[in-house]
């Protein structure tokens, strides 16, 4: 049984712009590539750490209004930027750590994802960059 209740309500910034009110899903995964170092004589595969290649995947409501989704992202595709996410909008602390990917790359930007009767949502994947976490 869970010992604490955590309702997802993270604070998300993309290139320093607060995108929380346009974001409905966020998934930050820290990845450190595994390099196989298994040698003769071993009975199981073993690995060592390679390069870090973390990803932040966001689902956002698309908006072409001023200071909203498109305005934030249009000039970021094909470039590197900084994204931040923390569990809640409260002050950064050990129980509300702020994770940052500095210099992560945005490879693709869906422009329109329209369907009849549905809100336009887009999925973004920020890849790479240097991961850091702040607790104060």
């Amino acid at each position: 049984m869970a010992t604490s209740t955590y309702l997802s309500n993270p604070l998300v910034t993309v290139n320093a712009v607060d995108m929380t009110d346009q974001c409905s899903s966020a998934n930050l995964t820290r990845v450190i590539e595994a390099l196989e170092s298994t040698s003769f004589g071993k009975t199981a595969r073993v690995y060592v750490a390679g390069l870090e290649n973390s990803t932040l995947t966001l689902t956002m409501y698309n908006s072409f209004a001023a200071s909203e989704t498109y305005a934030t992202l249009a000039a970021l595709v094909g470039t590197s930027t900084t994204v931040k996410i923390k569990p809640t909008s409260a002050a950064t602390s050990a129980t509300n750590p702020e994770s940052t990917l500095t210099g992560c790359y945005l490879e693709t930007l869906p422009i329109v994802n329209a369907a009849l009767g549905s809100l336009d949502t887009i999925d973004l994947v920020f890849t790479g960059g240097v991961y850091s976490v702040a607790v104060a």
Partner: protein
Amino acid sequence: MTYLIVSSKLGVVGDLYTPAEGINVEALLFGGFIVEQSTPKTKKSAKTNTEPNEE
């Protein structure tokens, strides 16, 4: 170059904006979140043209 915040999604409107490491300033300019603040030029002293005295 200094920048002014013009969108509340970035910070307090009217405040100076100092980009942190890794921030794409061109994207912020393109999106209309900041504007470049022109540094005031020092005014040159007015020239005084004195007409030659032809008396």
